[in-house]
């Protein structure tokens, strides 16, 4: 039982994949040598003028439209002022009262045992990234690399619509999958292309008013988000239950210790003294331009799910699972185009292939099984060249060698035995060698035939077609009676 209700909101920073930075022509390559991608604009030298990279606005618009946001007809940029050495200018160019977009919604599809839900998007706005600080162990100095300063970011803020850490986790998954469809970012959390902060508060169950929230930072994976939120629920619950208070503060997740810790404040009162960026003019978006970007949107998961159900006859669960990730859906469609039977192809992907991905912690494209190979495997089973049991072994061999299934079947001598003459002879040997089971069967214990079929399968090294083996054994047993 819990006397409190949890309220969670998320803040995601997405690096937009562009060739150049948001306000200058410096390249954005990841991992370049320190301070090799800077210029007077992104170093904040006096007298320079930032100019907006058109591509960042288009990419931002794409995301905003995919998140069903309303688009600001006339947007502008603001300066957010604070001192920190990763910020060369002493302010960050961001958006304040007229953000790129607002009031969107993200539909989170049903999971295996949890219903679908919707998360409202409060706003999504453009801003520039800061540089990177490297703290030297045991030194009184820090090193700064400004290559990242000025990389375009889209900040996406949700409404506090989530009630459990699991919902926050699923929201982030869905958001990432949607973003991957849009091809506007590599969404790589390890490279920092996708970063997430979480806001969490508790309130007495049934209360309308929100409780005092804490903000959690340093969340380097979606799993960290889930764990940090679960910890923070316990911490806040203990504080509130023992008559204490939750203090509005920023806390850092320590994944090693599994706790959140109070972060030293960056700026008292967080007074950023926003004011309009005088060096950037306003941007007015005509509805034709917005429509033009809308037309470039790919088919997104909800629409693709419906199509998979209609076109391929998949269940809503299968279709939803496959379309949640673009590369899974693309892989499935390539396999079907190469001749794979849709339902069987979907089963292979969701079964053995995804299991192998989890086991090896890789993506489906890393399994050395091109979609065309999977299609061949499906057809080999469909045409009864191999049994479905043999196909599982065949798939393992395919993943090991990267070969197509047909040559492998020949090389490994895996073909299913469907030649009734061969099976007839083997069945007779089995019947002769197992008098006990045979007499049981003849005495009316029909189940005994299962043991005999097993023996026959073993004799043929699993290559017999099981149905045929069953039929032939039955006829041999009848003859001998």
């Amino acid at each position, binding site marked *: 039982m819990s006397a409190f209700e949890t309220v969670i909101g998320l803040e995601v920073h997405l690096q937009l994949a562009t060739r150049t930075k948001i306000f200058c022509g*410096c390249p954005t390559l990841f991992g370049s040598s320190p301070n090799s991608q800077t210029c007077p604009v992104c*170093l904040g030298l006096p007298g320079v003028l930032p100019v907006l990279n058109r591509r960042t606005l288009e990419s931002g618009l794409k995301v905003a439209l995919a998140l069903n946001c309303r688009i600001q007809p*006339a947007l502008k940029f603001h300066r957010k*002022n604070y001192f920190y050495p990763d910020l060369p200018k002493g302010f960050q160019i961001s958006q304040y009262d007229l953000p790129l977009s607002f009031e969107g919604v993200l539909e989170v599809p049903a999971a295996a045992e949890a219903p679908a839900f919707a998360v409202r998007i409060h706003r999504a706005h453009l801003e520039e990234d800061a540089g990177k600080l490297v703290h030297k162990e045991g030194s009184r100095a820090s*090193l700064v690399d400004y290559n990242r300063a000025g990389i375009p970011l889209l900040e996406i803020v949700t409404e506090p619509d989530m009630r459990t850490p699991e919902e926050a986790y699923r929201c982030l998954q869905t958001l990432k999958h949607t973003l991957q469809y849009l091809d506007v970012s590599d969404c790589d959390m390890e490279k920092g292309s996708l970063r997430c902060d979480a806001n969490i508060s508790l309130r007495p169950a049934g209360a309308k008013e929100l409780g005092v929230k804490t903000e959690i930072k340093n969340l380097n994976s979606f799993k960290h988000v889930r764990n940090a939120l679960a910890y923070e629920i316990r911490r806040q619950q203990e504080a509130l239950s023992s008559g204490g208070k939750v203090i509005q503060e920023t806390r850092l997740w320590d994944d090693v210790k599994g706790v959140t810790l109070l972060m*030293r404040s960056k700026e008292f009162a967080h007074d950023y003294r926003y004011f309009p960026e005088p060096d950037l003019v306003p941007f007015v978006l005509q509805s034709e331009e917005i429509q033009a970007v809308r037309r470039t949107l790919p088919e997104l998961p909800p629409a693709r799910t419906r199509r998979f159900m209609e076109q391929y006859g998949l269940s809503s669960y299968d279709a939803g699972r496959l379309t949640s990730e673009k590369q899974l859906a693309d892989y499935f469609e390539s396999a079907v185009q190469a001749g794979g039977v849709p339902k069987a192809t979907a089963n292979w992907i969701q079964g053995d292939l995804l299991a192998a991905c989890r086991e090896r912690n890789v993506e489906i494209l890393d399994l050395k099984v091109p979609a065309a190979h999977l299609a061949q495997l499906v057809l080999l089973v469909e045409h009864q060249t191999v049994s479905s049991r043999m196909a599982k072994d065949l798939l393992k061999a395919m993943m090991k060698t990267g070969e197509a299934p047909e040559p492998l079947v020949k090389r490994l001598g895996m073909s299913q035995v469907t030649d009734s003459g061969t099976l007839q002879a083997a069945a007779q040997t089995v019947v002769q060698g197992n008098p006990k089971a045979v007499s049981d069967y003849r005495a009316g214990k029909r189940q005994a035939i299962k043991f005999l079929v097993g023996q026959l399968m073993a004799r043929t090294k699993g290559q017999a077609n099981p149905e045929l083996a069953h039929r032939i054994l039955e006829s041999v047993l009848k003859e001998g009676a």
Partner: protein
Amino acid sequence: MAFEESEVRYVAALARLSLTDEEIHRFSTQLKQILSYVDKLNQLKTDDISPTSHGIPMQNVFRKDEVIPSLDVEKALSNAPAREGPFFLVPRVIEDA
């Protein structure tokens, strides 16, 4: 419009300015004068005027997503008071628990 000495201290702290008491007193008086002058704008009727953040009638100034060569690292670091290898060197700042 009031601009108290406490506010001067607060803004100075945000801007990392270290001011003497005498300066704070002087700036408080001067800022009050400036603000009351600007405050005259409030006497204007602006109901029919759309808000503006810009004095120049321009909008939608973009650049193409094309790379312009960056500064040479040596040049980028040439104004830095301190450096270490290819990095700018700053007093230790760390946000931790």
